[in-house]
């Protein structure tokens, strides 16, 4: 589904990613771990299409298509979703209108008619119930005045509404208390299907107690230095990142 080959990425002539290789297949959950500042968020942003980065080498294929040539919105309509580490506040735009616009633009891209209003509202309710989100979201402006936990839950809610094939969650667990963490993890588990995939970026192993990954990667200094099963995450937790650092030297 996603195939990244020798990806090198810079910002302001500073190289952040130094040759990433990653293969994600349908049905898989990948975890990307690593210390701060090693390029985890950069990788997520480049897949979603953030244009402040410069790709100097390598390629990203998604469902066989060259992702790097695709506009941001087309990537989304092709099924890529980025759960933001810092969701953006957009005063004046209600969540209902935001999601309705997004859902209908993605439908348009796929040649479908807009979803009727009542059907859309029913879907919103259903997804809220599925995720056990009880907050009254509909008429609030997107992320405006939300607590950290509310913003992250709102990301998961958007993911549920848009039903992506490939969801990348960028440190969705950061700043969450244990209840919010459970809601986020629960959401991912409920949305898992054989035909979709998740890439969960996290600093801590804690989230992986609730979302069990198939493959764990350690990103260090712009490269994936180790990949393994879920036990790699536990080992990392016990030994700390110093262990990787020591091995690399």
């Amino acid at each position, binding site marked *: 589904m996603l195939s990244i080959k020798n990806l090198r990425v810079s910002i302001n002539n500073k190289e952040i990613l130094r040759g990433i290789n990653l293969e994600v297949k349908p049905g898989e959950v990948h975890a990307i771990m690593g210390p701060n500042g090693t390029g985890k968020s950069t990788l997520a942003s480049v897949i979603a299409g953030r244009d402040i980065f410069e790709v100097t080498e390598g390629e990203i294929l998604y469902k066989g298509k060259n992702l790097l040539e695709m506009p941001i919105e087309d990537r989304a309509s092709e099924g890529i979703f980025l759960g933001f580490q810092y969701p953006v506040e957009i005063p004046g735009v209600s969540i209902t209108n935001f999601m*309705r616009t*997004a859902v209908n633009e993605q439908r348009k891209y796929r040649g479908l008619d807009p979803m009727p209003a009542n059907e859309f509202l029913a879907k919103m309710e259903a997804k809220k119930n599925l995720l056990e989100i009880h907050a009254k979201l509909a008429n609030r402006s997107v992320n405006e005045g939300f607590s950290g936990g509310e913003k992250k839950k709102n990301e998961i809610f958007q993911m549920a509404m848009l039903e992506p094939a490939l969801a990348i969650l960028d440190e969705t667990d950061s700043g969450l208390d244990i209840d919010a963490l459970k809601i986020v993890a629960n959401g991912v588990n409920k949305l898992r299907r054989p035909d979709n995939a998740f890439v969960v970026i996290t600093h801590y192993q804690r989230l992986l107690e609730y979302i069990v990954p198939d493959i764990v990667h350690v990103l260090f200094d712009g490269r994936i230095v180790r990949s393994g099963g879920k036990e790699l995450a536990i080992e990392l937790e016990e030994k700390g990142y110093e262990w990787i650092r020591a091995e690399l030297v």
Partner: protein
Amino acid sequence: MDGTIVANYNIKDTLLGLWDDNSARICMNDSARIKELRKESIRIFAQKGFPNTKQEKWRNTDLSKMLNHPYNFPLEPDLENVDLNEVFRCDVPGFETYMVAQYNGWFIDRGNQLKQAAEGVIVCSLAEAFVKYPRLIEDAFGKYAPVADNSLTALNTAFARDGVFIYVPDNTDVAETVQMVNLINATDGVFLQTRNLVVIGQNSVLRLVQCDDSIDDHIGFINSVTEVVLADNARLDHYKLQNKNDRSALINNIYFHVGAGANLSTNAISLNGGLIRNEANVTLNGRGGHADILGVYLMDRNQHIDNQVFVDHAQPDCTSNELFKGILDDHASGVFNGHILVRPDAQRTNAYQNNKNILISDKAVIDTKPFLEIYADDVKCSHGATVGQLDSEAMFYLRSRGISMENARMLLMYAFAAEIVNKISIPQLQLRIDDLVKKRLRGELSVCDQCVLHCNAKEQKVAFEIDMSKI
């Protein structure tokens, strides 16, 4: 056209000559005081002439190009070619208003009757009021619009003969929203001095919508002055809706005189116009008065918008709240000057001022200047101004959900303007203006061939890709 003179590119001399030849006719129904006031006004205009960019208040708004045109100065109404049926069509569907129309500056008697006329509410032509209600005119006309320091107000005061006169007696809530539609339609280009006078009695309430529209794309210059008096505890909801063609100049001087405990809300919505200058002068002249002075402007091409707000806190315990938001694209230019004066006696004043702008293109310009002048010590005042582009983080966020760049831009611009539109307290009017703003942002609203509120009446409700309707 009777009394029409074509200027030879010296518009000031032409106007002075016009005065010399016609002053007897212009002053025909004047009291001694008003006759004197007009003479004083023309003297001031003769001395000062039109404003120019050497003057601090006009530094960024240049009238010279608009003045360099041989205008007609209609001294009498010319209604021969008016299709009244066309004008009648301007009623807003689903929105009960009592509409009065001005055509090339002259009031048109549509034969309609205000429901509360029997209670003493008057809405009529100003020229008619000079004859029928000389006492009311004598009490108010020219008393709130000082001519000494504003040569355009002086020019208007000298020549003004028609416009709208509104009088609301004490303790009266005018149920109908009064809508003033000012239509310009003249192939040769007209220069008009429209004048309105609005007097609202104690404890009375009025809702007023003032629409300035072009019917065609002919050149025109409107120099409008409106005096508004709110007696103690009166309330006015006032909206200015401006949709003029790119060859129009519209100067809008409004003088609000706000009594004790009175409440003013005025909102200037500028959608189109070659050159628009709104001067809102608010005097809070009684304890406990309040004024909301709001505005939103959406300008592009070579359009120019200038909002000048002067709030005079003359008495204690008054509050004022200014918020102007604008989006400028292409080569459009904008000016905001907000001046708050807190006089020595005006203790416990609370005054807030803010001007926020988004510049879409790198050729668009805004000059924004907040100015606080405070002589009392127990005062809360704040001001702010921002100029920015559309937030790139927000753009990325929206697009990452599948929203196209164009719609993401529109969504953010709409959200920016919505803060002002959402403050419109007449629900049907809010819906209409909401639609107009969307149309404007989509580039679908050019100069209407009819009243601005009518322009899309026959169409479907605006179908935004982004359907912002409340669901």
